[in-house]
């Protein structure tokens, strides 16, 4: 499969990737290297990973990062309660201490977290490490071993090597600079907001029944809204939500009903100040520009 095929396949699964992204994904698959997707919130970084897992019909294992994420939540943890109970039960029956230790530190007492689970699948899964910039530097350093060698060391058991190499997708909103060491290990792609044609294609893929006239209007409106001075610019997901809302309201032309248009903007604008900064006059101007 060359990169154009991959682009077409993604498009069949309702994900319109630009050429750069398709090529980056292809190379990441080819070289079995992680891919780092950076971009504004809502441009479809996470969706890319989801679509890949659909495309290859494999499991999507997701690790949502947050500050303070540690190995117990990301890799593995022993099931301490079970271990304690097991020791109590064994002692009463008079088992050998060595046996007890072997048993309670066996795999059945190990609780697998996403990273460990991802390297132990029969069929290579898609491992999505979402919003890596939210985790702290320590965790980043921790990831390096896994991303370069695909193996995890558990002191009580030993080193667990990957049965299959997962396809790793890291996403980042750029709220924090990532370390060069991590970047160097990844194929990189910056995902921009899509251009007009691509975004219309995305909309019609998701909502085939929306008329081309309305689709054009919606996308032009959202794109001009992104040029306004907003705290949180509407992403593709918001655009799709809004489309669903407009369809639900039975609106076929966004200029036809200013009141409904203004009310439906809650799908696009997610902060109070953004809602204030787009009053009815502005939304009408944008709507007329889009029409």
């Amino acid at each position, binding site marked *: 499969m060359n990169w154009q095929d991959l682009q077409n396949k993604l498009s069949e699964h309702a994900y319109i990737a630009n050429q750069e992204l398709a090529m980056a994904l292809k190379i990441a698959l080819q070289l079995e290297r992680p891919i780092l997707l950076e971009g504004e919130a809502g441009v479809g970084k996470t969706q890319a990973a989801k679509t890949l897992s659909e495309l290859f019909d494999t499991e999507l294992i997701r690790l949502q990062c947050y500050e303070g994420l540690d190995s117990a939540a990301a890799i593995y943890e022993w099931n301490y309660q079970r271990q304690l109970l097991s020791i109590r039960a064994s002692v009463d029956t008079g088992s050998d201490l060595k046996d007890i230790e072997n048993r309670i530190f066996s795999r059945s007492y190990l609780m697998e977290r996403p990273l460990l689970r991802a390297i132990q699948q029969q069929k290579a899964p898609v491992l999505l490490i979402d919003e890596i910039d939210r985790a702290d530097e320590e965790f980043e350093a921790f990831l390096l071993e896994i991303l370069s060698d695909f193996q995890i060391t558990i002191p009580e058991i030993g080193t667990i090597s990957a049965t299959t190499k997962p396809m790793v997708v890291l996403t980042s909103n750029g709220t924090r*600079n990532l370390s060069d060491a991590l970047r160097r290990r990844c194929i990189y792609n910056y995902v921009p907001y899509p251009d007009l044609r691509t975004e219309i294609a995305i909309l019609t893929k998701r909502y085939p029944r929306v008329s081309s006239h309305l689709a054009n209007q919606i996308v032009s409106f959202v794109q001009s809204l992104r040029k306004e001075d907003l705290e949180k610019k509407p992403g593709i997901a918001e655009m799709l939500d809004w489309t669903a809302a407009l369809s639900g309201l039975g609106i076929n032309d966004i200029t036809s009903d200013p009141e409904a248009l203004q009310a439906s903007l809650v799908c696009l604008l997610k902060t109070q100040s953004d809602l204030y900064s787009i009053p009815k006059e502005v939304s009408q101007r944008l709507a007329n520009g889009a029409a």
Partner: protein
Amino acid sequence: MAVTKFLYRTSINHRIVDFCHHLRNNGIMTSPIDAAHCLNVLRVINANEHHEVRLAFKSIFVSNKDGFNRFDELFDSFWFNERKQRHEHEAIENTGPKTVTNKNAPSIFEINGSGKSDNIDLPDNDNDKEANTSGKGRLIAAKTINTMTTDMREFIQAEDESKASEIARRIASAIRYKLSRRRKLSNRGNTLDMRRIMRKSIATDGEPLKLLRKRKPETPMHLVGLIDVSGSMQPYARVFLSFIKGLIGNDLRTDAFLFHTKLMCVSDALRDNNTLRAANRLSMMARGFGGGTKIGTCLNNFNKQFIGRILGRKSLVIIMSDGYDTDDTAILDSSLKHLKKSGCKLIWLNPLLGWKDYKPVNSSIITALPYLDLFAPCNTLQSLLVLENELRSL
């Protein structure tokens, strides 16, 4: 700037390696493994189609947004060398561990110095002649004669120094530690450490006799002080220098920089125990002391040269300046944005805030305000003392 010419036919391996060097010279870090990846990838794409090769190489070599935007030009300048010139660029300095240990030579990081590649993206071209910074109704700098070399002994006096270092010590201890989000083993922790309890209890037939605890450890903050020593700040320089010297004297995880139109690192000079020698070393660095200010440019240089080495999430940058700036505010804006993105806390101490009816209305301060975690006065040692509580709550 000269373009790459292929004088003779070389193998594709050579050319890829040359291309790596070309990228490296232009500030995009590449490694030999990248070159190997390129050769691998050429097998699976149509290598005759330059568009495909460009896309493929872009994914392999680029590792950040800046590189992503510049790659196409660099690609063109290397592979299509007929008509295109290499674009102006800045070579990124290797920010490895550069510790200055030479005791004899004064440690001067003269940044933006002899107008090499550093000042390319800066619109202001009057290199380092900062005396003529009178324009646009600035408050003080216009009347100040540019003292090219100042003996800084007069700026640090003994009685101030002991007071300042005491205040600095209190402030440093207020902000020194930040709680980590992770938990480590500790006798007085408030959560049970199940993993270790489990381990210990094996020895006692599974009876958890000893309860081990864990808590969030306090991790030290890295303090960085940036002091404006331009003409308009001259009256306050003594306070600031004493303060920063006190701060620096406390431990090694502190760095101090002076800036006016240039930025210099004075950590080592200030750390010198021999006050006289420290003052002498400082005075050697004091070229341009009391001239104009280019806050944005200096912060930009700070970002480029030092940020990778000394900043992280657990760091605190203290800027001491009145905000009177001869730079374009756009540079200040982008520099502060970059600085903030590195995850540090940002404090701006402004001596003018101590004035009775001062309002932060000049453009630099207005630009900076959204990025600041604290904006406070610092015209006397007393006002610095008041900061202690506010800093503690950051």
